[in-house]
């Protein structure tokens, strides 16, 4: 099984890579952080003895992606699974950020994800089942003031994935969307959780369980995975409560959390 993981050097990407490597899958890892990829490759090979290929790539840059695809084609690498993990966010008020930084969120989370998804489906292993995972977010379930761009970009992925799934169903492709709540993927994430006190712990999903279930569910043909009972309840509430109310509640809640000082 050959698996491509984008954003592999980040916290969630590393956990995904660990999970796949522990299952004996061969990995093609990409990230903008070349050093991170090198370290991870070493760690995975030492731990699991699988074949790990890495290539640093800026997915928002067409040339950079083309270069990577050339390498893939030159070696005739074909894939059975694509894990779209790469994504980013700048939290805080929309007008509090530089213009181009905000645009970059959409360029990576959406445009680049489409680019790589299109390219890798074209390079699926012929005659075999193919699996795609999109990492969306619990934030995709509601309008989220103070995370406005991010939440909308994740909503894009959720809807896109559902449609793509329908289109590719007959071609033996499954598409799963992962919508996790908070996960401790970076040292900074801990501060955000701490600032929320008890609720921070309660809505935090264990990374190692989420990645295992994600791969299991994607392989068994599921469409959506919202980890954690509390998060499933929240996503249900998001569907029945008017979105203007939700926006209001979320605004006040996040305002308070970021006011507590340590939320990053």
């Amino acid at each position, binding site marked *: 099984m050959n698996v491509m993981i984008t954003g592999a*050097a980040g*916290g969630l990407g*590393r*956990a995904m*890579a*660990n*999970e796949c490597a*522990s299952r004996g899958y061969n990995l093609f890892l990409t990230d903008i952080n070349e*050093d*991170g990829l090198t*370290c*991870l490759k*070493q*760690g*995975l090979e*030492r*731990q699991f003895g699988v074949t790990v290929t890495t290539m640093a790539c800026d997915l928002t840059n067409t040339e950079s992606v083309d270069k990577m695809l050339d390498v893939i084609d030159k070696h005739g690498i074909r894939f059975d699974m694509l894990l779209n993990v790469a994504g980013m966010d700048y939290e805080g008020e929309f007008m509090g950020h530089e213009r181009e930084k905000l645009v970059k969120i959409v360029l990576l989370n959406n445009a680049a994800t489409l680019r790589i998804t299109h390219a890798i489906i074209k390079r699926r292993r012929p005659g075999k089942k193919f699996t795609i995972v999109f990492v969306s977010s619990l934030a995709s379930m509601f309008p989220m003031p103070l995370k406005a761009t991010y939440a909308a970009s994740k909503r894009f992925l959720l809807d896109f994935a559902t449609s793509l799934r329908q289109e590719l169903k007959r071609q033996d492709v499954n598409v799963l969307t992962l919508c996790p709540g908070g996960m*401790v*993927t970076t*040292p900074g994430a*801990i501060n955000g*959780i*701490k600032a*929320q*006190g*008890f609720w*921070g*712990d309660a809505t*935090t999903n*264990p*990374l*190692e*369980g989420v990645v*295992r279930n994600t791969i299991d569910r994607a392989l068994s043909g599921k469409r959506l995975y919202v980890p954690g009972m509390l998060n499933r309840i929240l996503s249900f509430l998001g569907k029945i409560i008017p979105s203007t109310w939700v926006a209001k509640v979320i605004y006040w809640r996040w305002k308070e959390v970021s006011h507590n000082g340590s939320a990053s």
Partner: protein
Amino acid sequence: MKTVVITGASSGIGLETARLLARLGYNVLGIGRSEANCNKAKELILSENTNAKVEYFLADLMQQREVNRVSEKINAYLNERCNGELHALINNAGCVRSWYMTTYEGYEQQFALNHLAGFLLTYKLLPALKKAQGRVIMTGSDSHKGIKVHWNDVMLRHRYNPLTAYKQSKLCNLLFAKGLNDRFALDGIRAYVVDPGLVNTDIGNKDTGFLVNLIWKIRKKHGVSPDVPAKTYAYLCEVKDVPDGLYFYLCKEKNYSKEVTKENADRLFELSERLCDIQYGKVGMT
């Protein structure tokens, strides 16, 4: 003058041990993560004795590349000013993580810092330790008892639990010390593990979540001051007739887990060598 390297030396047990050993006339080389804390620690030690020999090095030892980088610096320092001799290495740096988090290599962080970092650093400093017939001292904990190493999942990717990860990493400290003694006692190197007891430090409040934070805030109030365990480290550095024991509490030998067997020690040694991509048998041959 004897030289000692102490990791996690900018706060808690490491800082108190650094202070005590500096007072006893050791040349103290501390390693810490935060520049501000390291500067403060150095000032504190110098304020107690302006002639104290103390130097701090910055490194985030959880990351293997940082261990490699800082050990090169320390080796250069030892070769330049200490005749290439290191009398004691105190692998004290440790952490608690509320959640499964990984290093750049994808290793679970408690295992990576509490065990692997010391394993790799000891390897890097082994020639200097051999030259001085030095001692390697790990900060252990009585919580190493009542647990086995999860050999099929040492990174605890299945059902990660902060306490299990901590306990296992502390059991690894004992297994590593045993493995070192089995291999290098004939070279004059001795390894020990100190049980500091319950100590009032911030270990459970650094980068942890609400629950671990709360529990540790309550629990640490019952802990002793870190200058109490510091005496045990000093004793193990100073004592002339090398004691045979492995595990020490308040300067006395103490019983440890039955899991500390040669078989387990060898198994951990082999696994750790693989995870660090090193071979202890080939020290000095490169």
